[in-house]
């Protein structure tokens, strides 16, 4: 009953200053919409960074032989059964696992007729590489057919350095577990291109069986598993750690601490960004709210003089600002979502290409609108509006009805 009176008063007061409240409403809407959108882009970058790190043959969880990271070579290896499946593990269902791939990755030397370079030779099963960037490579020429393919794929950067072309032959030299060097000649099936030229110069791919044959072994050096959702990572990690006891079972965050730190910073950055953005944009808004309350000091004094409880007067003023903040926030979220929808599939940022690729980002940024971020903006904005209107109102309440009426 009382609340109805307060809401009614608040509502009427909002219409009293149509123009000013209209501007206020527009300002809040704009601020909230821009923060919602900016958040979706920052989240998009975060997801992309994490994705890139996972894509870089890490998977969400990777199994390595102890010591491999310090001394990557065929000596630090392990065996995996041909028909091994992660989704047969206790508590892991097929829908949790996006895929898995075992590889033999060893340091090697590549030689053309003209040049020699140190590289990483990676023996893969192309059928299982849809979980990493390898499966998405743009290849000139042909890709690898299967794990037994005896041809190689080299990066464009490396191909240029060693002056080779599709169809030419190259020689690979690498060290076996026994310390003896093995070497063999291979034909270049294709040349791949990526956004990163350093990557192109490092990785040379061939069939997994081919590398095993060269090294006269049936072991692998790594096994990556990719999950469908980030949250399935920890349970999978635990199961794998049980099954592969004695091996190193690691998360992508452990394998790529830089990327992990960057994504962690973004969680904080979103908050910081909110305060910078709202702080800057809302300086005027907070001011308007404060003014709106201040200029009604006399009226509030009168209402108290005739017997309205201070708490009710306070509530009325706060309710009023909350109405306008609420409307602005709702409008802002709506506007943000409306702008987001047409760009939800990604925005081409080719113009900022170079700056972005140094952060390990690709040209197309896919914004991510997350409910949790929107809720954060809504709650923080409401608090901001509450404080901006409650603090001058409280000050007015402190001065007593007579003093307030004299203003």
């Amino acid at each position, binding site marked *: 009953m009382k609340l109805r*009176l307060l809401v009614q008063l608040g509502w009427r007061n909002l219409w*009293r200053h149509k123009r000013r409240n209209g501007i206020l409403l527009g300002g809040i809407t704009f601020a909230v919409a821009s923060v919602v959108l900016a958040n979706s882009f920052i989240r998009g970058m975060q997801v992309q960074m994490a994705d890139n790190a996972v894509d870089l043959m890490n998977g969400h969880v990777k199994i390595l032989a102890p010591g491999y990271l310090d001394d990557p070579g065929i000596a630090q290896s392990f065996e995996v059964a041909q028909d091994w499946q992660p989704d047969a593990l206790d508590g892991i269902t097929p829908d949790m696992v996006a895929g898995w791939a075992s590889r033999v990755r060893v340091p090697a030397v590549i030689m053309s007729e003209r040049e020699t370079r140190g590289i990483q030779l990676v023996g893969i099963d192309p059928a299982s590489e849809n979980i990493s960037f390898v499966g998405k490579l743009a290849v000139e020429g042909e890709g690898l057919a299967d794990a037994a393919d005896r041809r190689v794929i080299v990066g464009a950067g490396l191909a240029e350095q060693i002056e080779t072309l599709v169809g030419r032959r190259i020689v690979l030299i690498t060290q076996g577990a026994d310390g003896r060097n093995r070497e063999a000649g291979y034909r270049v099936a294709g040349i791949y291109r990526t956004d990163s030229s350093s990557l192109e110069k490092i990785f040379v791919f061939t069939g997994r069986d081919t590398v095993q044959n060269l090294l006269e072994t049936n072991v692998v050096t790594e096994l990556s598993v990719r999950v469908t959702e980030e949250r399935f990572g920890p349970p999978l990690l635990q199961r794998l750690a049980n099954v592969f006891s004695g091996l190193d079972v690691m998360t992508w965050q452990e394998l790529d601490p830089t990327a992990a730190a960057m994504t962690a910073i973004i969680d904080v950055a979103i908050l910081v960004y909110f305060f910078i953005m709202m702080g800057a944009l809302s300086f005027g808004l907070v001011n308007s709210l404060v003014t709106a309350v201040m200029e009604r000091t006399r*009226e509030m004094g009168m209402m108290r003089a*005739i017997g309205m409880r201070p708490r009710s007067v306070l509530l009325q003023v706060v309710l009023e600002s909350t109405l306008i903040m609420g409307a602005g926030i709702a409008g802002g979220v709506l506007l943000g979502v409306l702008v987001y929808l047409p760009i939800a599939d990604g925005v081409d940022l080719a113009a900022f290409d170079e700056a972005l690729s140094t952060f390990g980002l690709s040209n197309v940024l896919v914004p991510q609108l997350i409910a949790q971020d929107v809720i954060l903006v809504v709650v923080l904005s409401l608090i901001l509006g509450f404080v901006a209107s409650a603090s001058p109102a409280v000050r007015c309440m402190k001065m007593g009805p007579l003093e307030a009426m004299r203003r």
Partner: protein
Amino acid sequence: MSEEVVQCQGVTRVYADDAVPVHALRGVDFAVHKGDWVSLAGPSGSGKSTLLHIIGGLDRPNDGSVSVDGEDLGPLSEAQLSDLRLRKIGFVFQAYNLIPVLTAVENVEFIMQLQGVGASERRDRALEILDRLGLDDIGDRRPGELSGGQQQRVAVARAVVTDPVLLLADEPSANLDTATTKELLELLRNINENHGVTIVTATHDPMVMGYAKRPVNLRDGAIESDAGATAPSPDA
């Protein structure tokens, strides 16, 4: 014996915020009887408003005691004072009496809303009082659409609609011309004589003093003369 609606004893009010303390009231003894219309007069700064505010529970004396309708204001908390103002006292201020976003009827209803009077009863009583005070044709207008005199009369309607024991008015005619002032004073007289509402006004306006039953003169925070201090109150 007449009932005393207001009873002041040794009321002292000192404003000490400035370097030199201002003695607005210096031990005022004063009583208002039921059905009285007291007019506080005196030069500017003599303490009229201060006394009116203290009687109305809007200000507290530094010393002395005040009771309204037999209730000692001294021990009351701010919230209790607020409730007392709502239940027992009607206020008419010099200006800014009304809530700008509410119509005249709604302004009159507002105070009953605070008291928790039901919607239909509220509306009936508001319309009735406006009708009785000859304001029925302006009930739908907002304060901005009313003249100063009309606003003051709506304020009176709001002040008396709750049947207060006491109506306090500080310079009610300050912003009004002679004709309008006369209308307002006739209204107050009507309320005072026909409805038995006790009134205290504070004013410089000789016209207001002329209508009041009992002029009280203040000077330098003390009562200089009081027509009712010795004489029996009108309805005794």
